[in-house]
């Protein structure tokens, strides 16, 4: 605080107009309309308005934290990392599914509407129930499946995979499981049994992985009545993804894989045992531990 005050004084002495503008910016407020829902009291969402003082670089999550700290401690929302990595703070901000921690209030205008993610049940206020997304994700077996169970149980070495082979699925591996794509999906809006873009893109991510050979098990899950062929290819999922993953592309590639089979017919083998071993004896050794 002391350093901020002294900097302000210095600016005021140097340029009074600039100091006035800085003061005005500090005093600026925005209106945040928040959808509230208490399962014990409410039958439907209701809106509540808060006036929040803004600061440069403020995010929607910062605004919600400010409301919770200074105005209404009962406001419920979910957040964790505050840096767009964990995917906890997915919300419907000004009509679009976004991560609250990645959305600057300065981009949104004077009035900001924040609601829970569509296509999800609401637990409380801005907290969506993500259990269906996780259920669908679990259903497509999101892990490497191999036929050499002994190697899987107690691995001896790495599985061979070239950088080019990794490129085939890499972008889909950035999925946060934030469920913004499901919130944007028009098919998920009408059909709760639809597997959804998140799970379907992840089905492609693991099927395209050359270390995997569990495609038939995934085909049985996704090529069903409410599976991959229900996708309308609206592309809203790809627009919504905060990490630049393109689930719509993943779904199209998965459809091709269903028809033609995966590019690899057998899972990648483990790397060979090295033929020559580097002589470690001549390398300088780390000093012995002092504690």
């Amino acid at each position, binding site marked *: 605080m002391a350093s901020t005050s002294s900097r302000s004084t210095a600016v005021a002495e140097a340029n009074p107009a600039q100091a006035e503008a800085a003061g005005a910016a500090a005093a600026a407020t925005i209106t945040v309309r928040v959808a509230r829902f208490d399962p014990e009291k409410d039958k439907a969402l209701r809106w509540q308005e808060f006036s929040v003082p803004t600061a440069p670089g403020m995010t929607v999550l910062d605004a919600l934290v400010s409301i919770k700290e200074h105005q209404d401690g009962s406001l419920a929302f979910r957040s964790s990392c505050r840096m767009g990595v964990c995917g906890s703070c997915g919300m419907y901000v000004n009509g679009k599914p976004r991560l609250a921690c990645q959305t600057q209030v300065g981009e949104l205008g004077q009035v900001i509407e924040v609601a829970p993610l569509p296509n999800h049940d609401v637990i409380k206020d801005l907290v969506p129930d993500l259990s269906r997304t996780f259920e669908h994700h679990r259903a497509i077996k999101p892990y490497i499946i191999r036929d050499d169970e002994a190697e899987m149980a107690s691995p001896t070495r790495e599985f061979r995979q070239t950088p080019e082979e990794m490129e085939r699925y890499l972008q889909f591996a950035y999925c946060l499981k934030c469920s913004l794509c499901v919130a944007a999906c028009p*098919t998920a809006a*009408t*059909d*709760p*049994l*639809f597997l959804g873009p998140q799970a379907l893109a992840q089905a492609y991510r693991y099927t395209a992985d050359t270390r995997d050979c569990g495609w038939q098990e995934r*085909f049985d899950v996704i*090529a*069903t*009545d*409410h*599976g991959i*062929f*229900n996708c309308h290819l609206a592309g809203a999922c790809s627009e919504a993804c905060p990490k630049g993953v393109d689930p719509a592309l993943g779904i199209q590639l998965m*459809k091709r894989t*269903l*028809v033609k089979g995966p590019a690899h017919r057998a899972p990648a083998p483990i790397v060979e045992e090295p033929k020559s071993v580097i002589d470690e004896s001549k390398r300088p050794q780390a000093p012995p531990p002092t504690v």
Partner: protein
Amino acid sequence: MRETRLWQLHLFSALALIVLLSLHMGVQHYEKILTGLGLVGENVRDFASVAGRAGSAWWNVLYVLLLGFALYHGLYGTRRILHEVWYSRRATRVIDTLVVVFGLAVFIYGLWGILQATRMGGAL
């Protein structure tokens, strides 16, 4: 894999419809172009011309295929939409059964119509 085959057939029927509908529309509605190219005679919608086509095996095969592919393509799409509107597992089975029964009934009725036209065309 059943759904994959049904979807593949849906795509194939779309391609087939482009060809079959182009032929149908070309002959029925753009006859001036075909006449200009010397591919058909004039007055393709005269009774004699229609009856002549009805008696032709090639045209009948074309119309049976058009009927089948159009029905399949349309009903597959309808089924997908209905699956989203009524999404319980039981509803899915009921919709599938109704779509198959309706599709077969309309196809048989259409087939009967084409056979009747063939008989009339052949009688002329």
